């Protein structure tokens, strides 16, 4: 492996370098479907041992803090559950009066986030769970703070989620009172060190106050209604006469998450009685 510089080796080095550049360019140009399939294949075979190791490390690091957090959450849940039976009965009675269908049951799948060293980590998240858990492409990913993203690719032992920081992320949203609808997308032109979302497509006649909570609207069929996304942090841009774009401070930070929940929303056919 010791270097022996010379004209011949220089030429072969340059050719090898150019070959690698061409292959990298080819990888960039691959259609997303192929690149996800390729990445999934390598993760499930060659990189399986290292991912297993990383998952054990993440579990080891967070098990103690998770236990303490779980204890606190359990205490709060016990307190909140005391009035739950009465509320459920009342809810069922009102739904029956209005001839509404029963609420769609949403199952959750917990998963560890396996952060990577690459600077693009956070736009996509590698999750330590696979298809055996029942997760499917398109399932929403949430954290206790709010919406994180959506599953892009599901493998046997690992899964990739697109977070709200990904340039392609979009979600149909509404304000907490449901009066203002729009689309939430990552902000393209923000100042340095600021990470904001944009609440786009809000009609010019509608005004949203700073601090208003924005939730998923449930339109589009991917994200169920009512998942918190962020709080309005001011007007980003006004298209005179027809649209306002608001800055939205996201509630969940994909770069710092250790655990997430994947929502297993039943398909329409599954949820029908």
């Amino acid at each position, binding site marked *: 492996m010791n270097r022996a510089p010379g004209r011949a080796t220089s030429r072969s080095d340059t050719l090898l*370098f150019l070959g*690698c550049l061409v292959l990298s360019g080819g*990888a960039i140009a691959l259609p997303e479907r192929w690149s996800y399939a390729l990445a999934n294949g390598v993760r499930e075979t060659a990189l399986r041992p290292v991912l297993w190791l990383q998952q054990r490390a993440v579990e080891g690091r967070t098990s103690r803090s998770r236990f303490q957090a779980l204890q606190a959450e359990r205490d709060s849940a016990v307190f909140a559950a005391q009035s739950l039976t009465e509320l459920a009965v009342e809810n069922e009675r009102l739904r029956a009066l209005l001839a509404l269908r029963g609420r769609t049951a949403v199952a959750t799948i917990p998963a560890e986030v396996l952060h990577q060293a690459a600077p693009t980590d956070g736009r996509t998240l590698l999750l330590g769970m696979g298809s055996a858990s029942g997760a499917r492409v398109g399932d929403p990913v949430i954290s206790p703070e709010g919406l994180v993203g959506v599953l892009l690719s599901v493998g046997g032992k690992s899964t990739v989620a697109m977070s709200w920081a990904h340039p392609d992320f979009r979600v149909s949203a509404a304000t907490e009172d449901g009066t203002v609808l729009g689309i939430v997308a990552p902000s393209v032109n923000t100042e340095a060190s600021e990470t904001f979302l944009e609440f786009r497509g809000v009609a010019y006649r509608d005004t949203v106050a700073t601090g208003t909570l924005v939730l998923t609207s449930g339109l589009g069929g991917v994200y169920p209604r009512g998942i918190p996304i962020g709080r309005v942090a001011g007007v980003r841009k006004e298209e005179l006469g027809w649209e306002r774009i608001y800055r939205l401070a996201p509630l969940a930070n994909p770069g710092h998450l250790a655990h997430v929940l994947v929502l297993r929303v039943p398909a329409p056919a599954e949820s029908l009685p």
Partner: protein
Amino acid sequence: MSPRRGSSQLLLGFVLLAGLHFYVRPRLWDSRAAPDFLLLALMLVAIRARPGVAALAGFIVGLVNDVLTPASFGAGALAHTVVGYLAAWGRAVFFPDNLLVNAGLFAGGVMLRNTLMLLASGTPAGQLSAGLLVWAPLQALTTAVAGTVILLLFRNWFAIRIEV
């Protein structure tokens, strides 16, 4: 040292770096500023190898990065290929035996890798400036410190001569 013992020590060194990257790093400090031991392994290959071999090693390390963070597939392979190739050439130009030069090489490698990766993956302006001005220098610093410690402790394993 016999060549056989040397190559097994070298292999052990890279296994150690993989262990640090995939077990110790997520266990102790899982942050965007945490040292990148895979890039460190690439730089250690680049220090010893010809530029072509370093470029190939960079391509493989980059591909591993792309597989684990498929935000923009291929961007990592491109960035690591360039970093490996330039590091191998840079090694011939600068003083190869100086510890500080090695630390600078590690830090420069992280900065260049992050810059190329963010640019090649079409990062929006806000995230780009935060990535380049905040996270890249922090990660470069921690990687340089980690690399210096590893060089001091295991330089015989990697067969690298250092003037201390």
